[in-house]
């Protein structure tokens, strides 16, 4: 994720958030797919094992379509304001997963957060995180987690500042 960048101090005593956040709808899919692909291409910069597939666009379409109908998934779309009114400028996607061996039993995993550059560093990422956390909690999640590339320092800083800590690591080695 990269809702914020360069980690400079933000000054926002309840700023006017320059977006309107709402649950995504099937009609948003054409606007969401390019944003999701931008995020995956950003991830690609961090590790060769995150190379984006040729059919990623098709996959994105199908996954979004399926998850918009899935009660275990939450997708929020951020619309811009002013000239960007009615334009989807960012989104957040999360999945509710069961933790069969641990408590809390249900976990809300944030798998994507993406904002177009002009909406970064304005408190929007923070707002998205708060809103998705609330939505996940409402679906029964007792813990919220976030998945992102290990080398993404921007994401590490973003989540660390908001009280997140690493609890599980995913190590990889190519076997081809």
């Amino acid at each position, binding site marked *: 994720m*990269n809702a914020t*960048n*360069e980690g400079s101090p933000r000054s926002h005593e309840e700023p006017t958030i320059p977006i309107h956040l709402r649950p995504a709808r099937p009609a948003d899919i054409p606007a969401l797919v390019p944003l999701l692909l*931008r995020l995956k*291409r*950003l991830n690609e*910069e961090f590790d060769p094992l995150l190379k984006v597939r040729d059919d990623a666009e098709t996959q994105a379409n199908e996954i979004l379509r399926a998850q918009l109908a899935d009660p275990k998934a939450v997708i929020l779309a951020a619309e811009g304001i002013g000239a960007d009114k009615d334009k989807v400028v960012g989104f957040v996607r999360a999945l509710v997963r069961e933790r069969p061996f641990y408590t809390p039993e249900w976990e809300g995993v944030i798998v994507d957060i993406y904002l*177009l*550059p*002009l909406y970064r560093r304005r408190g929007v990422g923070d707002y998205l995180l708060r809103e998705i956390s609330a939505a996940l909690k409402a679906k029964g999640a007792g813990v919220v987690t976030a998945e992102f590339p290990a080398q993404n320092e921007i994401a590490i800083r973003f989540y660390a500042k908001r009280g997140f800590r690493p609890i599980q690591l995913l190590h990889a080695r190519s076997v081809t």
Partner: protein
Amino acid sequence: MAESSSAPVVEGKEPKRKPRSRRSTDAREKRKTDALGRRAVELSQFYQGKVEIVPKVPIRSLADFALWYTPGIAEVSRAIAADPERSFDLTGRWNTIAIVTDGSRVLGLGDIGPRAALPVMEGKALLFKWLGGVDAVPLPIVAKTPEAFLATLESLAPAFGGINLEDIASPKCFGILEEAQKRLPIPVWHDDQLGTAASTIAGLLNALELTNRSIREVRTVLLGAGAANLVTVRLLLTLGHDPSRISVVDQKGILHAERRDVDELMLHNPWKYKVALRTNGGGRTGDLANALEGADVLLAASTPDPNTIRTEHIQAMAKDPIVFALANPVPEIWPEVALQAGAAIVATGRSDFPNQVNNSLIFPAVFRGVLDVRAKSIPDEIVLAAARELAAHARDVGLSPTHILPTMEELDVFPHVAAAVGTSAVQLGIARRHLSHDELLERARAMMGRSTRLVKALARAKLTPKMPSAKALGGKKDQ
């Protein structure tokens, strides 16, 4: 200043006719450059280096070394140990700079490494001495990472009154300069960023005046997003240019906040990323032609190819457009073609056309100025003070579409720019030594004049051998 990232997405047709004269010009240029290259190699072999260290104190006999060296010198060291600032008075530090490079982007040659960069740094040192009276030490270094580079600069700083960074690849040059300016207690300059941008701004200020435009109202397109142009954007904004009326175009087209590669830029070139976010109001997309629609100014610092900018590009601009085609050695469009297409004012990086945008008008004088007041840094205000003085000097001599910048022959421009720079440093409160404008002017004239006399005296005394003819050298080749 051909820059690494640059050429616009050029689509479509080749220009219908390419005047034959231009093609033969290209060939003639190449022959000329080749001949100069051969001669430079011969002469480098003959002189084996372009600068040397020469004593500046009398040595009447070995006995004098009791003063210049031990035991007398210990007292001088003690004085500096007690007050490190005195190193600027009691040694040559005040007038000595290091020309530091990692050889990662030398001229148009690319990453040729520090050893191969040395002849260029020697040449730069010669220019510093001749034009600015500055003792510059050529210092190519091995630095694998920006942090290693910075650590080296910090290690070197005690010996120098300033650092001139040279020929470092973009974008790492931005981080190195930015961070070095923060860490070092002396001025740090990178000519490819600041020198080129300052002389571009100087020319632009006069071009705007000649065409009755205000920087606050013009629409400007920058072609190339390398070191010089990204700094030029920053300076334009400082001067009050509306960011939404600036478009930067590189080989991927118009730079904008939603361009496909923008996240990659965020990670790898945050300076360009910032420009992408701030500029291009109205959300233009596409290539150079789209950007130029109705633009008043085109500042190109991109690819040395005379077909980079075409007649139809100029024709798409506003009336009486200003065109700077600064790629070296070959501009992005030949001046006569740009003028024919309707450009009101054309500048290039070359001395054989009018309006040469030339770093050499800036850097010797900037260092003369900051060294004379023992400045602690070179903020953008100083860069702009140099640009404004350069512009003012051209105005004093007489402004015309073929004279928007002083030429290298207008030698008096150097002390004036130096004095303006020194004065600006004093006003900004970053000078260790306070001199008046007149004192600075006089000092700069004296320092620069001394260099000329020194070089001439060495030649007269035959200490510098006469330049041998190519013929003479041809017979003397070793092996």
